[in-house]
């Protein structure tokens, strides 16, 4: 079936005229129809528009136009990325009816490349969570075991990619929200260097940490999508002035002499024995290919989670203040004056986790507490970033687990926010330090659930990450395996 193939392969088939974009889109839409009732990855399916986009690509190709590699390839979008005229809910009651009047920069780039959008994907509300259970819209199930979570917050993106309900997807990552669900669902997810992908049109959770990134079933597919979305954008002041290579041509260079650091601190932190074993075996496999493995130390790792929750919640409390019932989205009825409108709309529109973070963030920014929390969080951020910088003097990449454990069962941790927060323990440091990192599958646990290997690099080292990840992928005979659903 077409939906099972990689984007790289499909792109070549489309270019050769062996298949049409409409056929491919129909295949993906058919798969959604077949399995999404069980998986629950999509918030909105845009079947009609997707077929129109596909038909447009086919007619351009029929006219003999040279088309970009992504032309005709289905790319589904996390529901916190603005799509003009298409519901963008952030999986929140607050934005249940919100249709943005504009497209995010990444959407403009995908449109220009001729990508097809099958729909919008479920997530933890406003990207806060690690299981997708904080969605106000629906639950998403892990395609490898429907009783388990897909991870989060980009759980819909990971589940859709893993189940074949899309070929590619965009997620967003503030503390692990691309990598952790990629790990849980056995796919490839890249959190790019901060500033390499425009945030214009990404509904902000924590502005200084958020980054959009590609999610795919193969490393090459992730590179293909990343090629299209990275680059300077005048509309995002934090977008970097940087020249990017063609990442699909950065693979296949081998790992001989590649210095891989293994930080001992990442193997405490509640990491299960089976996860530790799988990750170290993957590292060993790379060693056997000529990589040099070095034990390194990142001493401030255990403080990172605190710094992360202070900084991200502080920014979130401000970013989410605009959802007040006045201009768009949810508005409480039966209100008595302006303050009441604010209080009721926000109390009723936001879920518990979002409210928890808003309160936390409001507290740490309050007069009298700012220095003790926010300022210390920022100091810690500097420290973590400089420890990474120091580590990268002695190694090229760093290997760690992505998630300390495999996907847990739905409902298992919903009443224990701290346990839930611990799922991010290996990933938050990367956002804190503005680094790129990729999660790739490296075996399964006793429960049969995927385990993820996280590769972290210095800023703008995505080419090295793609190369090492693709090398490992070839060692294990490829990643692209869609599980039977149900």
């Amino acid at each position, binding site marked *: 079936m077409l939906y099972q193939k990689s984007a790289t392969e499909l792109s070549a088939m489309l270019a050769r005229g062996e298949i049409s974009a409409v056929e491919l889109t129909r295949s993906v839409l058919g798969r959604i129809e077949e399995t999404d009732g069980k998986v629950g990855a999509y918030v909105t399916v845009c079947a009609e528009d997707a077929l129109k986009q596909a038909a447009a690509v086919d007619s351009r190709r029929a006219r003999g136009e040279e088309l970009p590699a992504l032309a005709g390839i289905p790319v589904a979008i996390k529901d916190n990325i603005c799509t003009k005229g298409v519901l963008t809910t952030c999986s929140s009651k607050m934005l249940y009816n919100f249709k943005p009047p504009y497209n995010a920069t990444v959407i403009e780039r995908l449109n220009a490349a001729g990508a097809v959008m099958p729909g919008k994907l479920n997530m933890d509300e406003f990207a806060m969570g690690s299981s997708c259970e904080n969605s106000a819209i629906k639950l998403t199930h892990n395609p490898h075991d429907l009783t388990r979570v897909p991870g989060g917050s980009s759980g819909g993106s990971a589940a859709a990619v893993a189940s074949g309900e899309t070929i590619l997807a965009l997620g967003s990552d503030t503390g692990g929200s691309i990598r952790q669900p990629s790990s849980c669902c056995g796919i490839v997810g890249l959190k790019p260097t901060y500033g390499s992908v425009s945030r214009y049109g990404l509904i*902000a959770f924590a502005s200084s940490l958020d980054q959009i990134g590609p999610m795919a079933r193969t490393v090459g597919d992730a590179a293909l999508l990343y090629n299209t979305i990275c680059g300077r954008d005048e509309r995002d002041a934090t977008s970097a002035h940087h020249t990017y290579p063609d990442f699909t041509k950065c693979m296949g260079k081998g790992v001989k002499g590649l210095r891989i650091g293994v930080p001992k601190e990442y193997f405490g932190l509640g990491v299960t024995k089976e996860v530790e074993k799988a990750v170290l075996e993957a590292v060993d496999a790379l060693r056997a290919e000529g990589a040099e493995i070095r034990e390194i130390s990142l001493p401030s790792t255990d403080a990172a989670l605190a710094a992360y929750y202070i900084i991200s919640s502080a920014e979130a409390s401000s970013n989410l203040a*605009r959802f007040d019932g006045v201009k768009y989205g949810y508005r409480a009825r039966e209100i008595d004056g302006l303050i009441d409108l604010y209080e009721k709309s926000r109390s009723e529109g936001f879920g518990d986790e979002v409210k928890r973070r808003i309160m936390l963030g409001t507290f740490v920014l309050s007069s009298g507490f700012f220095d003790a929390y926010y300022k210390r969080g920022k100091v810690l951020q500097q420290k973590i970033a400089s420890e990474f910088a120091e580590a990268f003097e002695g190694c090229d990449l760093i290997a760690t687990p992505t998630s300390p454990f495999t996907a847990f069962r739905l409902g298992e941790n919903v009443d224990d926010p701290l346990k839930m927060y611990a799922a991010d323990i290996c990933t938050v440091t990367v956002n804190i330090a503005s680094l790129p990192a990729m999660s790739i599958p490296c075996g399964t646990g006793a429960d049969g659930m995927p385990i993820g290997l996280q590769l972290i690099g210095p800023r703008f080292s995505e080419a090295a990450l793609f190369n090492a990840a693709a090398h490992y992928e070839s060692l294990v005979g490829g990643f692209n395996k869609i599980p039977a659903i149900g």
Partner: protein
Amino acid sequence: MKKDYEIIIGLEVHAELNTKSKIFCTCKNAFGGEVNANCCPVCTGMPGTLPVLNEQVVYSCIRMGHALGCTIHNICKQDRKNYFYPDLPKAYQISQFDVPLCENGALEVMLDDEGHTKTIGVTRIHIEEDAGKLIHDDNFSGSLVDFNRCGVPLIEIVSEPDMRSSAEAKAYLDTIKSILQYLNISDCKMQEGSIRCDVNVSVRPVGQKEFGTRVEMKNVNSFSAAVRAIDYEAARQIELLEDGGHVVQETRKWNDAIGENMVLRSKEDAQDYRYFPEPDLLTIVVPQEKVDALRAEQPELPNARCKRYMFENKLPRFDANLLVENRDRGDLFDAAAALGAPAKAAANWLNGDVARLLGERGLTLADTKLTAESLAEMIDAIEKKTISNTAGKTVIEEIMFSGKSVSEVISEKGLAQVSDTGALRSVVEEVLSKNEKAVGEYKAGKTNVIGFLVGQCMRATKGKGNPELLRKLLEELIG
């Protein structure tokens, strides 16, 4: 016994900048226009949008900083000021908190006609964005929001508590306004709200060192309102103290229509704005060369110009002020004076006939063909008695609007002054014969009717008669 009190005033002036586009998006920065016409997803704070700083805003603020002698923090940041209000669509205002672009300046203001001045400290100047406006409509029971003003760039100029009377505050505000105009960074249209101020007032018994409790007043929408608001608030505080009460630290709202203020919020209700660095924007870094270049471009400022007119050109303060208030008029004055035109005459023509003719037509100097050369030439013709002062009124109108040269106008209109005694004598004789009553009064000792008779002769000569000669002839013929 009633004590003597000293009034302490500090001012926060918000000036809208006249940049072409808004501070964080490409929307037009313009007053008026249809409701919600000049706005976009960015300035209406739509989810996912991001601000991009308009660097002209930074340059305008630095210009003002230079004009007020500030230290320029060419490396600084922007911060979010968080609060909920329907006219603030992001629920935070992007402003500057602990590191403003400009800091520690001073402004010398002139207090009287003798040129006595006082220096008012300027604490800081920072950049920020304006909010929208709530509007009300008869067809709708609630409030509506117009976002056109949202994202209009502002500078906030904060003074030290250095003013001691409403008159000093007025002088400070007038000076700030004239500098903004000279730098051409703000339209300064009070009626459009492009300059607004918050007023801080406290009082203390004369001789007391510590400041009294401060009250902040909002909604002061004109400079004259500032004077009324300060006088009212100072009187209110003094009365409170005289009655044995005490002043409460609070924010009050001035109502200019009824000339009173009322409590807006008390200190306990003071908002915690939870300022923190704006993560969507980069650190502002202005190269030192740019800071220096902006200083080098600075024009002569109004205060310095006014002093120069008063002390070098010996103009009265009234005349000097008129030239200073209208920068283009002052520039033309300087150019004419440089060509040798006497200062008082040049000032009189510019502030008198020229200003009147412009006012009647609703024009500015730039709309006319008047040049420093033609003005100087015309004044010279009057000084040399080639034409009379009366004929000058015709000449100035012609050279302003027709673009003809002074000599062309004089010859075409036959304005050359008649100094031929023979020709004028017959005119004088005729005027005398028609004005026997005035002649009688003159003879009876009321010699000032001579002015009237000269005027009659000027009229008879269509302004061409040499008035001094006419006076002489009149005196001779009557006597």
